[in-house]
């Protein structure tokens, strides 16, 4: 049960990562590798500030701002200096590796002895429920774990609502159109470059927020924690799209990203429980995303051949 709760919580926290990847990959059609650096950046900034005594909520907001900044750097390199989007992301990701080490001062910052959003949520939960353990469908569960889960759920829902409403505004609608047809957006008098920069900034802000929450949940920030996270985010987005049937509706796509992230984390937890070597996890994630990208086209081809 604890395992299940943990998987759900991490899935919900990483759904913010999935939403960020959705914004850059699906709305702007940019596979943005800055992700690997900015999720670590979010964790590093939040952990370092918390250890320094800054309230966890402020530290988390600072992490979001740092991710926003990292994304806008990628955006500026891509649009103003005309460097390929993929390469821009690689450049910023590489630079962020050093920056993250600078921010933390070492490769790992433990948060075990500090108050975090997770410990705050846990304490609040124990106070509200009045006991350290509660029964969920007959299973005894730590009240702290349960309230952290609800905290993560609240973060995911608030994040999704913010993204949803933002992309329904005048600016947000124009930004969605930018990924769709930049020529048309220019003809409608909007500055495509500024929208691209802002879109990548928003995406990485979400991703850094996800990193900040993850660090507080797992109790440490680590320089290596971002490796392969963009592929992880893609996997979540792709599962989400499969769940929602490839709809174009923004609300459903976002809901799909949340469910995709949680489901993917659950699948991984189950696989690890069954004895999957954790070292193989990234390989399997990559193969999964590759298959998900290639299979629909392949199946279509086979169908046409047989008819």
């Amino acid at each position: 049960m604890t395992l299940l709760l943990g998987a759900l919580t991490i899935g919900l926290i990483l759904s913010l990562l999935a939403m960020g990847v959705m914004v850059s990959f699906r709305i702007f059609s940019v596979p943005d590798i800055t992700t690997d650096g900015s999720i670590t950046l979010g964790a590093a900034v939040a952990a370092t500030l918390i250890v320094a005594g800054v309230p966890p909520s402020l530290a988390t907001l600072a992490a979001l701002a740092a991710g926003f900044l990292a994304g806008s750097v990628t955006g500026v390199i891509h649009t103003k200096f005309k460097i390929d989007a993929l390469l821009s992301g690689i450049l910023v990701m590489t630079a962020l590796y050093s920056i993250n080490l600078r921010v933390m001062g070492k490769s790992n910052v433990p948060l075990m002895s500090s108050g975090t959003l997770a410990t705050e949520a846990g304490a609040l939960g124990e106070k509200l429920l009045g006991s350290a353990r509660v029964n969920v469908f007959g299973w005894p569960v730590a009240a702290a774990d349960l309230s952290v889960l609800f905290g993560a759920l609240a973060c995911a829902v608030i994040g999704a609502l913010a993204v949803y409403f933002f992309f329904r505004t005048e600016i947000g609608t124009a930004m969605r159109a930018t990924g769709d047809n930049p020529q048309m957006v220019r003809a409608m008098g909007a500055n495509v470059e500024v929208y691209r920069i802002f879109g990548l900034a928003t995406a990485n802000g979400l991703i850094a927020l996800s990193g900040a929450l993850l660090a507080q949940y797992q109790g440490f920030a680590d320089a290596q924690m971002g490796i392969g996270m963009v592929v992880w985010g893609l996997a979540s987005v792709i599962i989400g799209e499969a769940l929602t049937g490839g709809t174009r509706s923004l609300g459903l796509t976002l809901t799909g990203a949340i469910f995709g992230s949680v489901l993917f984390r659950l699948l991984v937890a189950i696989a690890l429980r069954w004895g999957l070597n954790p070292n193989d996890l990234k390989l399997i994630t990559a193969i999964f995303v590759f298959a998900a990208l290639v299979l629909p086209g392949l199946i279509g081809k086979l169908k046409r051949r047989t008819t």
Partner: protein
Amino acid sequence: MTAMLSLTNLRKTFNEGTVNEVRALQGIDLEVEEGAFVQLLGMNGSGKSTLLNAVAGSFYLDAGSIRLAGVDITRQPEHRRATLIGRVFQNPFSGTAPNLSIAENFALASRRGLGRGLGWALNRRLLDDLRARVATLRMGLEDRIDNAIGSLSGGQRQALTLLMATWLKPKLLLLDEHTAALDPKSADQVIQLTEEIVSREKLTTLMVTHSMQQAVNLGGRIVMLHKGQVAHDLRGADKRRLRPEDLVDRFHEIRARELLDERAAELLRASYL
């Protein structure tokens, strides 16, 4: 009467100094009065689409200046010029964002050149307005404004693009062979709609076309381009008397003169070199 659009000595060479050098515009001068509906004609490579893109700001000129509605827009980027200019492209896919709904596409059009904020893109007034105006297209699209625009046919998309380009009255409307990619029936529909909108709103319009028939039927002025220059400029009574055959003759005339030039040059080269 002052001109709405003044083009002075426009020059543009692409890929200068390479084997692919194209001297697309070679000193174009053109004045267009307010409310004039001008047809641009010319053979492939005559520079008509390039001229339209130069006015729209798809690239910057090597030389020359563009004034529109009293503003020098020569150095303005494309999205700034969009404040004054409405455009419909040859490709029906170019003018709309396919994954956005019809309503959302029009929400974009309703803010052309006005700047965008954090207000809702869609509101009741816009939607009511939109249904009423889309109904005038008589395509039954007013009940489908929440559908993705990518699900519509080329003709429907082009009609909607035209409506979007003129949703806020532009100082200048640019139509770049906007019926060339459509089937004949849709093309007729869109042309009819073009005529309706342009004459109702008294829009200053530059339209590129391949069709002599369209050029003769529409508007009050025909400008023929050849090799990046204005070859003929017909208006008033000259334009009204014109038949498609006359236009074809003019083209033959240009071709003949050109061949003659080449042959004369050949002759001179043969006899003197």
